[in-house]
Structure formats: C-alpha cells, structure tokens
C-alpha cells in the first residue's frame, strides 16, 4: 500500500464528478487501419520510455560482427575487409531475427499485466493490438538495422548494390521478420511468463541463425547439417540479402523468401488470432 504525501484531491468525489462525465455521443468507431496505427504509436512511446529494451538483442549481433570480423576474418576470407562484405548481411539478418521474439514478449507482458483486458474489452478491430504492435516492431527493426549497417560501413563495409541494394535488402528483411513475428505472438499467448517467451525464442532462434550461412559458407559442414541449412529460411533470406546488397540477387531467391513469409503469416496469424480471442 502506498500513500502519497500530496493533499487529498477532492475533485474525484461523487458530487463533482458530474461535469467530467461526457454526455456527448461517442465518436464514430475508427477503422481497422486507424486503430492499428494507434497501437503502433503505443509501441513508439515504449521505445521512447524504455529504450533499453532494445539493448541486449542488438548487442549480440554487434559483438558478433566485430568479433568475427577481426578474429576470424583473415583466416576465413583472406582479409578482415573481405570477410566483412560477406558477414554483414548475415549479422543484419540475425539482429532483426532475434528482435522478432520481442513481439511475443510484449504481448505476453500485456496479458500478464492486464492491459490486454482493457484492449479486448474495447469495441475495436480485434487483431489491432497485435497488428499495431507488429507495425511498431518494424520501426524497431529499422532502427536496429540502421545501427548494424552504420557500424558495418564504419568498419569498411562497401556494398556494390549501393543504397538501392541495401534498401531493397532491408525491405526484404522487414517483410520476412514481420512474418516471423507471428510465431512469437502465438508463443506469447501460449506460455505463461514473458521470460519463457524469451527462453523459447532463443532456443529456436539461435539454431536458426547459427546453423545457416550467416557466418561461413556451409560447404565445409557435414551433410546432415547441410540438409538443415538448405531448408532453413534464414539461409535463403541471407542469400537473397547478400545478393541484393551486392547487386547480384536472383529473382528466385527473393521469391523463395517472400513465399516463406506468406506461408508463415498464413499459418501463424490465424492460430494467433484464435488463441487471442479465447485468451484467459
């Protein structure tokens, strides 16, 4: 129990509450897009108030970029500069992929704290809190990407695809990450605590990002691992992103990533919404 030293506010008493109660008719109900944007605005406010929430996940890829480049770059690719050209698109994908699990963490916090009850009791488009959070997350992904690319450029990353190539690569990463986030929204609704979302996220995302072509060309790896790497969507995304950044992307690579994104949304969005509607 907390008591504030401030003087008792008398305004809230019954007698004087009347003027503050609205007698105007309620405004027209906003559309799905408008409410989703309102929830996206909420995400922006959270970045403003709690910027440290981005910290740990960005730190990992930044450490990997710096460490791998300078420790192994020479050995793996002949020079640190050459390795960075290969590595950076990979760590960029890794950064954003790791960030996606925070969508689930955020949703889980909303439910455990009870805010989600308020949202679910409002007459609004039901998926809006989730869709809005995802839109807000895209902004986070952009911020984190800018940081990683900026670091890369400072270290000597010079993509031959130029600004256009990098922008196209970023767009592809965002599309895929938006889709991947729906896995975490489902996880966020199923598990009990925000912490278990994190654990689940890392258990899935670390193998996905490490057992891929993020750090090295998988040709030297054992066959069984190569089988996994070939079906790993992260591998395909990294290949396409490298292609776009170097200006050598094939339509097939990009198409594969987009297809995987659509498939993820098609499976996990309905599952998420079903779970959300019946959340307890």
């Amino acid at each position, binding site marked *: 129990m907390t008591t504030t030293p401030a003087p*008792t506010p*008398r305004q809230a008493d019954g*007698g004087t509450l009347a003027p503050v*109660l609205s007698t105007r008719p309620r405004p027209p*109900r906003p559309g799905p897009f408008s409410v989703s944007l309102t929830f996206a605005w*909420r995400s922006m406010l959270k970045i403003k108030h709690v910027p440290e929430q981005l910290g740990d996940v960005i730190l990992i890829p930044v450490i990997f970029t710096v460490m791998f480049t300078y420790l192994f770059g020479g050995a793996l690719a002949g020079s640190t500069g050459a390795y960075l050209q290969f590595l950076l698109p990979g760590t960029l994908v890794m950064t954003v992929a790791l960030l996606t699990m925070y969508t689930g963490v955020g949703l889980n916090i909303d439910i455990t704290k009870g*805010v989600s*009850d*308020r*949202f679910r009791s409002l007459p609004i488009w039901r998926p809006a809190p989730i869709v809005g959070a995802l839109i807000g997350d895209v902004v986070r992904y952009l911020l984190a990407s800018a940081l990683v690319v900026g670091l890369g450029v400072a270290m000597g990353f010079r993509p031959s695809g130029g600004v256009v190539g990098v922008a196209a690569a970023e767009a592809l990463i965002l599309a895929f990450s938006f889709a991947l986030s729906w896995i975490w929204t489902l996880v966020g609704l199923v598990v009990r605590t925000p912490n278990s979302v994190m654990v689940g996220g890392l258990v899935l995302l670390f193998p996905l990002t490490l057992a891929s072509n993020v750090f090295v060309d998988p040709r030297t790896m054992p066959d069984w691992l190569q089988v996994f790497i070939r079906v790993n969507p992260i591998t395909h995304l990294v290949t396409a992103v490298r292609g776009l950044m170097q200006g050598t992307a094939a339509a097939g690579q990009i198409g594969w990533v987009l297809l995987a994104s659509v498939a993820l949304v098609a499976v996990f969005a309905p599952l998420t919404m079903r779970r959300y509607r019946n959340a307890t």
Partner: protein
Amino acid sequence: MTETTSASPSTRKGTADAQSELAIEASGLAKAFGETRAVNGVDLAVPVGSVYGFLGPNGAGKTTTIRMLATLLRPDEGTARVLGHDVVREADAVRSRVSLTGQFASVDEDLTGQENLVLVARLLGFSRAQARARARELLEAFGLAESAGRQAKLYSGGMRRRLDVAASIIVTPELIFLDEPTTGLDPRSCNQVWGIVRGLVAQGTTVLLTTQYLDEADQLADRIAVIDRGVVIAEGTNGELKAMVGSGSLGVRLRDPGQRPEAERTLSRSLDMPVHLESDPALLSARSADPERVAHALAELSRSGVALAGFALGQPSLDEVFLALTGHPTQGDPQTDEEDAP
C-alpha cells in the same frame, strides 16, 4: 475473422425500450478451467441504473463471471445478455456499451498517465486534439494532473486505480464492471473510488462491482449476490442479506490474550452460541442479534474476572456471513483471513 456485428443504431440509446429493465440477465453461466469449475451455474438479474455487488472470497468465481459478462471469456454453458445483447453472439455490441476496470489496474505501466488516456480515447475514435483534451479533463478531475507526465509504473496503487477508472469513463458507459476496485487501497483511496462509483450511478450508469468486503458492498450496492465456489448462495438487498445472517456481531478485545479460553467458555455459555476466535490473539467474536443477551454476557465476563480492553457491536464480517450461509468459513487466502472483527 473479425466480429463486425455492428450495433443497430436504433438501440444505441434505447435500453429503456428493451423487453426488460434489466442491464444484465444471465442464466446458468458456467466456466471450467481444466478440472476446476470456476463458475458453476450463475443466474443474475441486474436492474438498469442500479449498483449490484458481487460478494465473495478469492477464488469464488467473481472475476470469471465478470470476464464472461464483459465478453473476455466465452462461457462453457449458459447464456447472458448485457444491455439486451448476447455476450457471445453480439459481443461487439456489448463492448461498445460497457467498460471494464479489471482487478489489476489495466493501464500500460510504461506509458504516462496522459498517454494512457490518450491511447484509449484514440482507440474509441477521438481525434488527436479531442483525445488530448479529454485526457486533460479526466486527469484534472481525478487529481492526477500533476502526475500526468509520469509513467504509470511510478504511480501509487490509488493513483493507478483512478487512472484505470478514468480510462473506463472516457466515453460514459451504460454499464461499468469494476472488479475489486478497492482491493489493496488505503482507506482514503477507497473513499475516492467509492465517490467515483456514486458519481457514475448518479449519471445513470449501471454498476456491477465485485468485492471481498461486506462493508464495501454495503456502502455501495443496492443488491448483493454472495458467491461461493462458483455458485450464488444468497441474493438480496443489503437488509435482506443481513437479516439472513443475523443483525450483527459482538467483538470482544481482551486485555490479556491468555484469558481467551476462559472468555470463550463464558461467552459461548451465556450467549448460547459458538464463539469465533479471531487471528488476533486478544480478539473474540460472536454473532448475536440480541443486545440484552450481549449485555448479560459482558456482565458474566467481568464477573468471571476477564479483563476487557474493549468491545463493539457491529456488522457481521464476511467470514461470519459465509459461515452463516454455507456452514464453512471462507477458504484460507491470507488476505481474507485478515478480516478483522468489527
């Protein structure tokens, strides 16, 4: 996928034209979580414009019932109509008429008080400027203007609760659900919340509130339903309920807790009823309707040499209500165990 059952405009203001004057009518509501039947066949009839109290200990099924009525949970069995709309088939129409203030203040702790209210106002369709203006009005009225720019996580329990209620009345609801609005609040904050509830009722809003405290139900509610283990075990006006339980109870405080066994024997003999030992070792209580008998019993006590620090005749506690209605005490949540004698 989306529930777009829009409210027919003709019924927007028209609860009065409805077949009944009931804001809530539920029959046979039931909800199970796994093996536990949290709510096991609840019937309710809440008249429009009244304050209806839902009284029961933790885990009795109050919150589950409210969540079903507020369309957050789908009932396993039974039906409920809120302001004339079915809570399952016309959930959206219900949502656009009611507000919910959850048991744990449902505000976003990361956002400031101002931002919380603007957020909900925007979701309800206010323009940016309107939302800001409305937020300011409410913050002012609820004594939160000075903390408007602080994150809600820095608010005290009472402030958070007021912010929560403010968010619930951005648009005046026809019905408001308040789930344990004062649990964990200090007395002053309780009074403020009660004042807000009375203000809402004065404006014609129907209130359904849950509480663990008989006193609170007594202060606010026109009618009370006592719920235990998922079932309504008694229903009526405050007067009717109290008559059911007995008019009041006697609380006796001893100067020396060591004399309690002696005091218990004497009291139960002269009152001719069981005496309840409170968790405070110096405190005993007994339900007694008859002042004559009480006077006699107190005289007996002093004759037998038991030194009294004080005594009081008052309302039965929730524990006593339960004992009277069910024959078993409220189940041991430490919070309810602290319920003191009057």
